[in-house]
């Protein structure tokens, strides 16, 4: 059936967040519902950084944190 819009919004938000802050390569996120290994690995990296439970899933705590106002500098690697 049609993807519930808030699920899709959350997926797109997470994809944009992980690309910006965790260097998720473009095009390697997989599809909503079938996340790629890259995508899952980046979620775990973000959960580890923020001391959340490392599940690799877009659970409520993880999404809540992705929606918090923050600095635009990535949490990993160089920024130029």
């Amino acid at each position, binding site marked *: 059936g049609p993807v519930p819009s808030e699920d899709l919004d959350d997926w797109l938000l997470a994809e944009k967040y992980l690309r910006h802050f965790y260097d998720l390569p473009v095009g390697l996120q997989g599809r909503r519902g079938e996340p790629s290994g890259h995508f899952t690995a980046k979620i775990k990296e973000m959960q580890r950084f923020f001391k959340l*439970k490392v599940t690799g899933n877009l659970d409520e*705590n993880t999404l809540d944190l992705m929606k*918090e106002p923050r*600095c*635009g500098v990535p949490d990993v690697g160089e920024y130029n």
Partner: protein
Amino acid sequence: HFPRDLKWQTNDVTFRIVNYTPDLEKSDVDRAIRRALNVWSDVTPLTFKKLHKGIADIMISFGSREHGDHNPFDGPDGLLAHAYPPGEGIGGDTHFDEDEHWSKDSSTYNLFIVAAHELGHALGMSHSTEPSALMYPVYSYSTGYPLSEDDVEGIQALYGPNPNSRKVKPKPDAPDKCDPMLTFDAATELRGETLVFKDRFYWRLHPQIPEPEQVLIKSTWPSIPNKVDAAYENPEKDLVIIFSGIKMWALNGYNLVDGYPKYIHRLGLPKSIRKIDAAVHIGDTGKTLLFTDEEYWSYDEATGTMDRGYPRSIEKDFPGMNDEVDAAVYHYGFLYFFHEHVQYEYSYNSRKVMRILRTNSILNC
């Protein structure tokens, strides 16, 4: 730090404020930026010289969406600002999102706090995983000294300590939920979740999520003080009351209720009471128990009055309990009292302590 520990090769760094936000007086922006730079110069040999024209090491500007560096901002909230690590050209430059509202208090995004964080990047600091650190990526309003131990160690690893000033006392790190000596400041239910307050943080416990989430109080409720003494939920009114000192705030869900803070003496407590140690609402009786030192009061929520014959002695009325309480919650006929690092499960019906646990067993430790 950034890869290759990028830093300025001189301790005398220049900066220039290229344009100003209309949200604040120009002098307020100047002051916020200068205070933010002082945070870092206080703990290092760095000095910051202001230029009014030409190219400075750190060019500070306000812009929205695509603002010339191919790293566009995103409108209100979300990305607040960014800065580049030390280096030629764009290196060190610091940009603030003009689509945010900038303030000099807790009303919206505090420019001093965001500037101190971003200028940390401009000096070579990357993000910290410590929720209490200034270099933590998520915005949170707080007063007092902004640098934590992690921040001070990080910047001094790049530039060394300030040879001329006394050692600063960094902000304490976030409380460790599994510290066996952990004590609670306050605890309350909130629509099926449990909130446990400690220092400037609270843990949010959700029945289906084993791992509690640690959050800065100010990042959820900027106008509530950093230190909560007591809290309780009145589910009939769908309100949580938060006590700090002689004031109390009301929350409806996560929103502050208008008309607060109010003084705790509005409940009928004598003026001699300056602080409530713990509070808990007993759903079965409609009474709210307020604990102060070695006594407690009973407040009738329906009539909005203090019951007669109080205060009474905690030790007498709750046999087996300690004589003071740090925090209390009520679940299905059991009162859970927290005092220091011990938790008492007290049966309200049989009037006795059923179990004694460690305080932080509630935090999945």
